[in-house]
C-alpha cells in the first residue's frame, strides 16, 4: 500500500450510472476503511478539526476506526454532527478538513469524508441511534425550515433538553437535502430520511405543510403558540433568471424547478404523478454544484447535456469531484460561452439558444478574471430544454411579515456569526437565509451557532 495515496473508493461505472439514479459512489468497505484510517497521523495539533465547520474530533474517530471500534467512532462524530451520512457525501472536504490535512503536504490527504460516511453508514446499518441524556426543560423552541441548518439547530437544542418543533413549508422534511441534491449523490430513503429520523429520536417534532410568513407568523409563534425562541433556517430558495429574451419560452426551467420535480416529487419514478420535461438536447446555464446536479439529472433522464458557462474550467464554482463525475458520464462543457437569447418555435417551445463566446479579462471584485464577450462570435446551440442554474436568494416571506427583523440589501437576514442573533430578541437565524446560497456544512455550522445563541438567551432569561 502506498501511504501517500488515498485508498481508492469504488464507484458505479460511468456508462452504467449515466442511465440510473443509483448512488455513484459505493463508499468504503470495512477493510478499506480500516486501511485508510491507518494513514491518519493522529496529529496532536490537529488542523483538520479547525478545518471542519462543526469541529468534529476527526483524529479521535479515525483512531476508533483503526481499532475497529465503529460504534465509538459514531459516538464521537455524533457529538458534533447530526447529519454525518449526509456530510460524508456532500461536504467540500477538499477545502475543509482534507484541505489542511498534514498527510496532504506530501501526497494525498486522509480521505476523511469517505471515513465519516463509512462510520455513519455502519451506524445506520447496525441500528445505532443517538442517545438523549439531558433532562427535559420546559422551554419551547420553534425552528423554521428542516434543511441542514434547522435540523442541526433542532438536534443540538433537543440534546440540551429543549422542546423543539420544526416547521417545514413543503410536504416532506429535509429542505435542500431532499428537493435539491439528487438521489445519485445523496440517496433519500437510505441516507437522508434515516438521518432525519435520528433527529426526531432526540425528541424533535416536525410539522410539515406550515409556511412561516403565511400559515403562521413569527409573532404568532412567540405570542400565541407559546414558543420562547425561534430559529430561522429557511434557506435561499428563490431562483434567479438571466433576463434575456425568450426566457419564458416553454422548456426553460430554473434548476430549482427541474431538481424539485425530480428529487422531491420523484418525477424519475414512473409511479409518481409529477411530470418532468427533459428534451433531447438540454443546455444547463451555470457552473456551480447545482448546475452539475441538474446536468447529471437530465443526462439520466435520457438527454444529451451541455453545460454552458461564461468563464473557463478553472473558475467553475462546482466541486472538482462533481465536474469530474459529470465529464466521465458524458456531459459536454461549452466553456467561455454566454447565452444571449433563447429561440422558440411557433408554439412557444425552445428550439435553440443563441450564445456568444467569451474571453477572460482583468480580475473583478471576486478575484476571478472577468469574462468579456468576443465581438461577432455569436452562434446557435440547438436544444429543446434550457435549465437556468444561476444561484438563489432568500425567500422574502418571513422578512415581509416580521416587524423589526433586519435584512441586508440582498434580502439576507442580518445575524451574528457566533450565535445567530438577529435584530429581534429571541429570534435567531442561520444558513442560506443569512449568507445566501452556500453549502450544507456551513448551514450546519450556523445551525449549531444558533442553538448556542438560543441556549444562552434562554438561560439568561430564565
Amino acid at each position, binding site marked *: 500500500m502506498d501511504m501517500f495515496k488515498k485508498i481508492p473508493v469504488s464507484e458505479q461505472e460511468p456508462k452504467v450510472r449515466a442511465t440510473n439514479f443509483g448512488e455513484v459512489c459505493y463508499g468504503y468497505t470495512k477493510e478499506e476503511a480500516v486501511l485508510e484510517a491507518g494513514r491518519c497521523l493522529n496529529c496532536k495539533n490537529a488542523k483538520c478539526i479547525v478545518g471542519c465547520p462543526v469541529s468534529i474530533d476527526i483524529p479521535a474517530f479515525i483512531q476508533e476506526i483503526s481499532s475497529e471500534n465503529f460504534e465509538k467512532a459514531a459516538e464521537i462524530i455524533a457529538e458534533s454532527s447530526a447529519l454525518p451520512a449526509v456530510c460524508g457525501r456532500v461536504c467540500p472536504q477538499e477545502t475543509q478538513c482534507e484541505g489542511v490535512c498534514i498527510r496532504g503536504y506530501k501526497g494525498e490527504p486522509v480521505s476523511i469524508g469517505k471515513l465519516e460516511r463509512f462510520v455513519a453508514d455502519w451506524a445506520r446499518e447496525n441500528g445505532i441511534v443517538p442517545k438523549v441524556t439531558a433532562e427535559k426543560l420546559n422551554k419551547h423552541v420553534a425552528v423554521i425550515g428542516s434543511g441542514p441548518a434547522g435540523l442541526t439547530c433542532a438536534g443540538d437544542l433537543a440534546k440540551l433538553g429543549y422542546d423543539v418543533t420544526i416547521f417545514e413549508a413543503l*410536504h416532506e422534511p429535509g429542505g435542500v437535502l431532499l428537493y435539491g441534491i439528487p438521489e445519485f449523490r445523496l440517496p433519500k430513503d437510505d441516507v437522508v430520511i434515516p438521518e432525519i429520523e435520528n433527529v426526531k429520536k432526540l425528541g424533535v417534532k416536525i410539522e410539515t405543510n406550515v409556511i412561516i410568513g403565511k400559515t403562521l407568523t413569527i409573532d404568532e409563534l412567540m405570542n400565541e403558540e407559546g414558543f420562547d425562541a425561534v430559529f430561522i433556517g429557511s434557506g435561499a430558495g428563490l431562483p434567479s433568471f438571466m433576463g434575456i429574451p425568450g426566457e419564458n419560452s*416553454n*422548456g426553460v426551467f430554473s434548476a*430549482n*424547478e427541474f431538481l424539485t420535480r425530480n428529487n422531491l*416529487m420523484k418525477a424519475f419514478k414512473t409511479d409518481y404523478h409529477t411530470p418532468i420535461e427533459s428534451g433531447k438536447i438540454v443546455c444547463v446555464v451555470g457552473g456551480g454544484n447545482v448546475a452539475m446536479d441538474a446536468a447529471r439529472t437530465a443526462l439520466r433522464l435520457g438527454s444529451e447535456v451541455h453545460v454552458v458557462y461564461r468563464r473557463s474550467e478553472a473558475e467553475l464554482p462546482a466541486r472538482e469531484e462533481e465536474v469530474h463525475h459529470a465529464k466521465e458520464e458524458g456531459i459536454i462543457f461549452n466553456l467561455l460561452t454566454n447565452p444571449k437569447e433563447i429561440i422558440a418555435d411557433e408554439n412557444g417551445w425552445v428550439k435553440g439558444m443563441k450564445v456568444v463566446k467569451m474571453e477572460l479579462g482583468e480580475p473583478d471584485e471576486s478575484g476571478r478574471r472577468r469574462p468579456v464577450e468576443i465581438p461577432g462570435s455569436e452562434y446557435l446551440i440547438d436544444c429543446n430544454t434550457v435549465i437556468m442554474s444561476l444561484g438563489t436568494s432568500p*425567500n422574502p416571506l418571513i422578512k415581509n411579515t416580521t416587524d423589526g427583523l433586519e435584512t441586508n440589501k440582498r434580502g439576507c437576514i442580518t445575524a451574528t456569526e457566533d450565535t445567530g442573533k438577529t435584530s429581534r430578541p429571541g429570534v435567531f437565524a442561520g444558513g442560506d437565509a443569512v449568507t445566501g446560497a452556500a453549502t450544507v456544512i456551513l448551514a450546519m455550522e450556523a445551525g449549531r451557532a444558533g442553538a448556542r445563541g438560543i441556549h444562552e438567551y434562554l438561560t439568561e432569561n430564565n
Partner: protein
Amino acid sequence: MFKIVKKRQLSDKVILMDIEAKRVAKKCLPGEFVIVKANEKGERIPLTVCDYNRDAGTVTIVFQTVGFSTELFGRYNEGDYYADFVGPLGNPSELVIEDPETLKDKKILFVGGGLGIAPVYPQVKWLHEHGIACDSVIGARNADLLILREEMEAVSDNLYIATDDGSIGQKGLVTDVIKQLVTEQGKKYDLCVTIGPMIMMKFVCNLTKELGIPTVASMNPIMVDGTGMCGACRLTVGDEIKFACVDGPEFDGHLIDFDEAMKRQQIYKTAEGREMLKILEGDTHHGGCGYCGGDK
C-alpha cells in the same frame, strides 16, 4: 392528513369540497390559494380558496376533473383524507385589504367564467358582508355547467348570466354582457375583477381596456411549491417577469401577456395526457399511451 368533510358535485366535472385545515382556515382570505396533494405519490396542485369557515376550521376548494391529479382528487369521498394541504399562499385580493369605507363609493364588476366563478364568489361575498354593492357577470357553456348560481345571486346586487347556447341567461359570451351593461345601459364601473379560463380573461381585459375600466385578473399557472422556489409560474406583466405564487395571483389584467401565459399552460400537456389515460383505463390500461410500456 386533511379530512374531506363535505363533497358536492356542482356539475358534471366540477366538484366542491370542504377540507378540514384549521391553520389555513384561520388565516386565509379571498384571492389566496392553497396547494393540495392527494397522496404520497401525488402532484402538488394549486387551487384558489373558494370559501372558508373559521369556526369549523374548514376551507372550501372547487376543482374540475380535467387532468390526472384533479381526476384523482375527485375519486376521494367525504371522510377520506388528502395527504397534504398547505396555505394560504399568494396575496389576498386588494379589495379585502382596502378600507371598506373607501370601497363603498366604487362600482365594482366581477366577471367569472366556468370554474372561475368559484374563486370570484368569496370576493363578492366579502364585499356583500361589508355592505359594498357590486354587479357580477357569470358565464359557462350551458346551464348544466354553470356553477354556484344561487350563491352568486345571494351576494351580488345584480347578477347577469351568459351561456354559449342560451340555455340559461343570455346567449353569448360574458364580454357581450359587459359591452351591453356599459355601452347600452350606461353603467359605469371603477374596477373589474375577472377570473376564469385564460382565453376569457384575455378578451375581458381587451374589452375593459377599450372601455377604460381598470381590471384585475387572477392567474392560476403551473406551479410546484407555490412559495417562490420553482419559478414555473412566471409570467410577463408589463415589462416585468412576475411569479404568480408570490407576486400574485392577481395582476393588472391590462398588462398581462396572456398569449405567453396560455402557451406556458401547455408545457406538461403530453405527459399529463399519458397519465390521464392510465387512471381512466385503470386495470385495462395496457400501454395505449404509447409510453409506459403497458404489460411489458
